[in-house]
């Protein structure tokens, strides 16, 4: 029977290997980055190569990322979080999960200055638009140009958007739609009208745009970066910029209570992200998230995007909408019957 013991030893060795593999790597100064953007891994790798400091990247989509940060509460496993949506950042800061008073010595351009956090809850890293319309080239009737066009009877059941509870960029879309309807709570009637007009809701960008391609819907309301990415890969689609288009900067936050060496490391990484080098890496990475308008003077705009001056840009107050963060998504889920 000693052979069985031998066999068990093999199993024990395998388990030992599994424990070693799963063991939380010694932080030893490694910065932990929770990131919802596609280019994080490339940026982190380049940063490690240049600076010698290690960065551990944890990739999650925005909704689960924010839920995880909330669940971890005041024993966070992260130092820096990077995602789309200043409203969520303000919400985290208001809950004392992210630090206030962030500021970096960066040469911002005009848009960059406009996108700054009023209370230093985040650092903006790039601009996209919260919601643009993606339609097939063969779209029969006149495409929508304004938000209220989505209520046209001819568009009944033909419009889809993301679920703001899961897809972070969809929250500013929701905020924009509510603004169209007169703010909060007046704007609720606009959303309810959209629901009566057969609005479809999908988990994330990919699901919404796949529904568009399969013909389930004919108008996808998605983030500009996703929209232009799909247009690039599918000439059968075209992007329409609504008027107005609401701003959706990607932002970085640091966990509350970060200090000393960790704080220095976090700031150093953020500085790199906003540097010319960092911006070049991000915009050339090739994913949807690369399609953003830069916020610093050293960075050149992506040639695949229209000039920002062509966009009728509207700004959402992140603190105001950030305070409603805990209310908006659940309310939307209730109204749309997503619970």
């Amino acid at each position, binding site marked *: *029977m*000693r*052979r*069985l*013991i*031998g*066999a068990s030893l*093999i*199993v024990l060795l*395998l*388990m030992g290997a*599994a*424990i070693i*593999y*799963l*063991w*939380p790597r010694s932080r030893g100064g490694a910065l932990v980055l*929770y990131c919802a953007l596609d280019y994080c891994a490339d940026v982190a790798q380049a940063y490690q190569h240049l600076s010698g400091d290690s960065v*551990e*990247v*944890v*990739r*999650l989509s*925005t*909704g*689960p990322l*924010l*839920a*995880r940060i*909330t*669940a*971890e*509460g*005041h*024993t966070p*496993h992260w130092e820096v979080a990077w995602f789309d949506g200043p409203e*969520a950042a303000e*919400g985290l800061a208001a809950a004392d999960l992210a630090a206030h008073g962030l500021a970096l010595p960066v040469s911002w351009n005009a848009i960059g200055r406009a996108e700054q956090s009023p209370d230093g809850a985040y650092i903006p890293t790039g601009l996209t638009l919260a919601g643009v319309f993606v339609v097939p080239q063969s779209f029969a009737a006149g495409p929508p140009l304004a938000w209220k066009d989505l209520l046209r009877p001819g568009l009944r059941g033909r419009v889809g958007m993301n679920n703001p*509870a*899961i897809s*972070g960029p969809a929250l500013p879309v929701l905020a924009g739609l509510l603004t169209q309807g007169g703010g909060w709570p007046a704007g609720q009637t606009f959303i309810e009208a959209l629901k009566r007009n057969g609005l479809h*809701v999908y*988990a*994330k960008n*990919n*699901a919404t745009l*796949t*529904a568009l*391609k*399969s013909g389930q819907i004919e108008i996808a309301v998605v983030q500009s970066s996703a929209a232009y990415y799909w247009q690039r890969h599918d000439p059968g689609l075209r992007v329409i910029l609504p008027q107005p288009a609401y701003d959706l900067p990607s932002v970085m936050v640091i966990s509350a209570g970060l200090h000393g060496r960790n704080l220095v490391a976090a700031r150093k990484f953020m500085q790199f992200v906003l540097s010319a080098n960092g911006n070049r890496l991000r915009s050339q990475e090739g994913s949807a998230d690369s399609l953003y308008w830069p916020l610093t003077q050293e960075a050149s705009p992506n040639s695949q995007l229209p000039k920002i001056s062509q966009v009728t840009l509207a700004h959402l107050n992140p603190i105001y909408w950030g305070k409603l*963060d*805990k*209310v908006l*998504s*659940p309310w939307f*889920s*209730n109204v749309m*019957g*997503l*619970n």
Partner: protein
Amino acid sequence: MINYRRLRAAPLFGLLLFTALFVIPVIWFLLGAFSSSTSSRTISIVAVRNSVLIGIAVSLLSVVPGLALGWLSDRWVFPLRRLITPIIWLLFLFPSYLLTTGWQIVMDAPWMRDSVWAGYFNGVLGIIFLLTMKGLPFAYFTGLAVWRMLGNDLFDALATLAVPRVRASRVIITLLLPAAAATAVVVFVETIQEFGIPATLGAAIHLPIVTYAIYTQLTSAPPDFRAAALLSLPLVGLAVMAAAVQALIHHRRAVALKTRRSKPLARCALPQSGRFVAALAVCLFAIFGVLIPLAGLAYAAVGGASGTAGDIAAWSSLFNSLCYAMLGAALALLGVFAIWPALRARGTWYGQAVDIMTLVNMAIPGVILGAAYLIAFNGGWLPLYGTPLLLVLAYGAAQVPMLLRLLQAPLSQVPRGLHEAASVHVANHETRLLDVRLPLIADPLCWGYALAFGAIFFELPISELLYPPGRPPFGVAIVAFNQALDYTQAARLGLAAMGVLFLFGAGAAGLMHLAQNHNRKYHDVPVAV
């Protein structure tokens, strides 16, 4: 000298361990339903209502086919009869989210997308169909046991006494009713606790189902623990009620079958007309049960369905799950050993407490255990949330009750005298443990480990709630691909996982076979002078 106190403490330790790892987190989570914090989301009873109605429909729909398949398999000889059991096992072991993905791929194919069948599938009928498929194995196994208990002599007696066919059918049905009712209850509980199908098809068609609704409350921004707890209460309550009903049926009505002693059954050849119908039924069962979804997965894997080219990072989920399963199954076995002394001490209060707790535990679905661990370990004195340790702990805790029930019979059946002979005759501790005691229980332990391994590998709700960022388990990766409609990746990963597990299982079986295959050649032993 034996320390009496230490010996007596062993069962109490098992009780404490079970209480700490299971009872306290679950109760703490459920009590959150009554907390004063405001719930930001309306708790829609639609999810609960849907789950109950679907559960009832599925249990009614699966009982008769399951019993019929058991009857065909046990009583008759016809072509393809031997296929029934393997298909049932395949269906039983097939993860529900992968089964659903296979069907979704088929229904999303260009020639099916706009058909009426796709319309039916992408609705509540599709959910019911898939859940019925997953419920069939339970109905089959129960049916098989019942048919075997009925025995040939009963039918011989009915024939000899020339009992009219209608009356004979009534006799048979009356005997079958308790088993059918118990089966329906088991299928109902399994259905309302199912997570994989609501997480895939349910999410796609926005049909609120209570297990996925609980999950959504915890993983949307912001997470709502109170809402999750409120939704969990009816789920647990229904399962406990169903378990009580099943126990009552078993106690009152099944005595007739329990106390029968019956000769083993000889199968008869079906008449010609029946043979064709039976074979056709088996074919259809195979096709709709496993072949179509497998074909869908294969079709998507070669690039036939929507999806992306590749994401190497997601494939690490395969390796992650192998590691989690190895460790979780080992932890579950250790938990069984820790709790075993308490379970054996049935005459004592702690033995009965553990017995009841492990029974009640089976009414707690994975999503609730995951939620309980998320809340219990996300701060304060033991912030394990987000670590692989917590996930492995949860996996182990979830498997312990199943393993206890599974191993109880084989471990108890080892004749007591064999252990006692070791106590009396083998002074050497190492010899006693390694050469005598362990080998006696090696087989059931290995089977228990293998089952726990497989269950953990394919596990979904606990994985979704507790996986450490950057180390997603297999199920999480599959569902992520499914929800992003990336069927190509989902199919490739799914088929690769099945292949890996098959190889792993074959390797483990080979290892066991080699280890237990003693050299039977007689060795010349020198005679002591």
